[in-house]
């Protein structure tokens, strides 16, 4: 791991709803801007590729859902990406072109279900892994599936150990603890929470985990969504649907980049690896300040496929 300070960026802008390809082009532009600020790690918001269907109710109420709701889901599904497809190669190309670790939120589709994921790319363009959101919130539960314990990665990179928790996963103490136990030092928090209470949460996590926290939230207005975007009530074009509020925090909870609301921006901050250790002096949540004699957490990281197929036997049964 490098010991010299380096830059990291979070991106605050809107995805182009239901159009992953245009969104990936936009990602290229913003990544180039971040790279021009010497960023080595670039973090995009939750559901950036595929979009966060802000404000939609998917025609659902307890006991029923409308056919319009189904149509909206179909539209959302069509805008999501297959992780085996071209989208991965394209995003990898952006990481490679700009020589950065790229962390982005996306909507993954697998068979008939969508998952809110974070994708990780290395500067050589390789796709190094993903984290599927474990627990969607509110209406998200209608459109996203639930990840299992098999995608809780923390990647050892020259810039530190990189991992990500999405939006309100950041309020799951046991999930955070498992991230801390993997030595996470660049804690990415792609989110759709633009509330004023988000910054305190990011500061708390930085101080609890003694890690850098990089939180990216979209800033998007009505005009960033298609004309036929099925909001319950139409609003003027410049109405903010996602306010922003991205921030970067140091391992003692100091705010390096404060939230700014209502505009597109790139926050770039200097990350000083030396601070990771000096901050642990008086508190290490999984070491000098833990009580493993009292608390013991088990995390089941096994993949949970629904169907285990037993491969057809190669043994023909005929003795040779």
């Amino acid at each position, binding site marked *: 791991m490098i010991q010299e300070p380096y830059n990291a960026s979070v991106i605050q802008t809107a995805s182009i709803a239901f159009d992953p390809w245009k969104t990936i082009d936009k990602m290229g532009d913003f990544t180039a801007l971040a790279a021009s600020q010497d960023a080595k790690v670039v973090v995009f918001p939750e559901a950036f590729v595929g979009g966060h269907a802000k404000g939609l109710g998917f025609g659902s109420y307890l006991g029923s859902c409308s056919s319009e709701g189904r149509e909206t889901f179909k539209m959302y599904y069509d805008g999501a990406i297959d992780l085996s497809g071209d989208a991965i190669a394209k995003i990898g190309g952006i990481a490679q072109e700009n020589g950065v670790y790229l962390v982005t939120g996306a909507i993954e589709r697998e068979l008939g279900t969508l998952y809110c994921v974070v994708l990780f790319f290395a500067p050589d363009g390789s796709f190094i892994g993903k984290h599927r959101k474990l627990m969607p919130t509110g209406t998200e539960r209608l459109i996203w599936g639930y990840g299992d314990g098999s995608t809780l990665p923390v990647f050892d990179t020259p810039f530190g150990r990189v991992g990500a928790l999405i939006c*309100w996963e950041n309020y799951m*103490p046991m999930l955070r603890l498992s991230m801390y136990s993997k030595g996470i030092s660049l804690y990415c928090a792609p989110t759709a929470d633009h509330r004023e209470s988000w910054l305190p949460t990011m*500061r708390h*996590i930085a*101080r609890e985990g003694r890690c850098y926290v990089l939180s990216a939230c979209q800033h998007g207005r009505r005009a960033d969504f298609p004309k036929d975007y099925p909001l319950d009530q139409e609003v003027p074009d410049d109405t903010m649907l996602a306010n922003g509020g991205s921030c970067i925090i140091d391992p003692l909870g100091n705010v390096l980049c404060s939230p700014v609301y209502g505009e597109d921006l790139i926050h770039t901050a200097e990350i000083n690896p030396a601070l990771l250790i000096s901050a642990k002096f008086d508190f290490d*949540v999984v070491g000098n300040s*833990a009580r493993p004699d009292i*608390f013991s*957490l088990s995390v089941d990281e096994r993949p949970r496929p629904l169907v285990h197929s037993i491969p057809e036997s190669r043994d023909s049964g005929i003795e040779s």
Partner: protein
Amino acid sequence: MEFEGEPGPYLAAVVQAAPCGFDNQATLDKVAKWTAKAKKVKARLVVFPEAFVGAYPFGNDFGTRIGLRTPEGRKNYAEYYRAAIKIPGPEVSALAEVAKENSCYLVIGVVERAGSTLYSSTIFFSPEGNLLGSRRKLMNSGVERYVWGQGDGTSLHVFPTSLGLLGAVIGGESYMPPLRMTLYSKGMNLYCAPTVDDSDVWASSMRTVALEGRCFVLSACQLLRRSDLPAGYTISDQVPDGEFLIRGGSCIVDPLGTVLAEPIFNRECLITATIDMTVVARAKYDFDVVGHYARSDIFRLEVNENRQIAVSKALITMKPMKPMKPMKPMKPMKPMKAAMRRERDDSRTV
């Protein structure tokens, strides 16, 4: 234990004040004075800071360096030791009397002496003047580790009261996720946080804890001025100049993270807020850290709440063993009765 029914809105108070050094009688008088003030505004729950009775010897390094202790440091520790209180004991009785006189739940940080070790503890009293219980801090920060021992898992209490489910997390313990998780799982909705942490980040943490646990958070921080220190008190020359040693920053937050009483710095004060317990259920709608948001299929926290005893008496006197008889061959097992089989099958589907 589930909290049955919700009380009507009531007032809770947090006291931000300085204890009177090692003079416990003076500190107890001060507790009585501030609790009476809280009663005047009809507070039914009053929370005091960490290590209020017995004091927090801020700035003292107890003459300790790696591999080195000094006679002066030992003397300082002995003074601190003498000011610590036993639970139960006369100081606890006096505090119970304060709770009774003011008909309030009283939660207060004390320095507890058990055997010859000191602990940062929080004790709880009912409005009838009963000691509900106490809990010892599990994890101390920095130089606190010179002077305080660590509690075990026996005191992770949450008390069912007429005001809500009452618990306390002491100082830096608020940064221990599994401890918070344990108390959330016991339904705590009145999260008291007696502390001496006066940092800017503290209020951020209290808001986060409130949002995470969907509970009311009542944080009481000491205020400590140089003038509050007893004469002859040792303070490290590394302490920055200035009158305020601990500047306060107590606050009250609701289960949606809304700050009901903002932190106030650099003065003694009583902060209050109206607690409306119906907010708890409204807040749990979209987040319940130990319920619909938990993912217990992935995360499983085991908590050892057993007493940890340094020396335990062996109760069974060992007799020399008789040589074992050779075992008889086992009879073949009877087939299970049909009823029993059914029971087993049922249990499998649970």
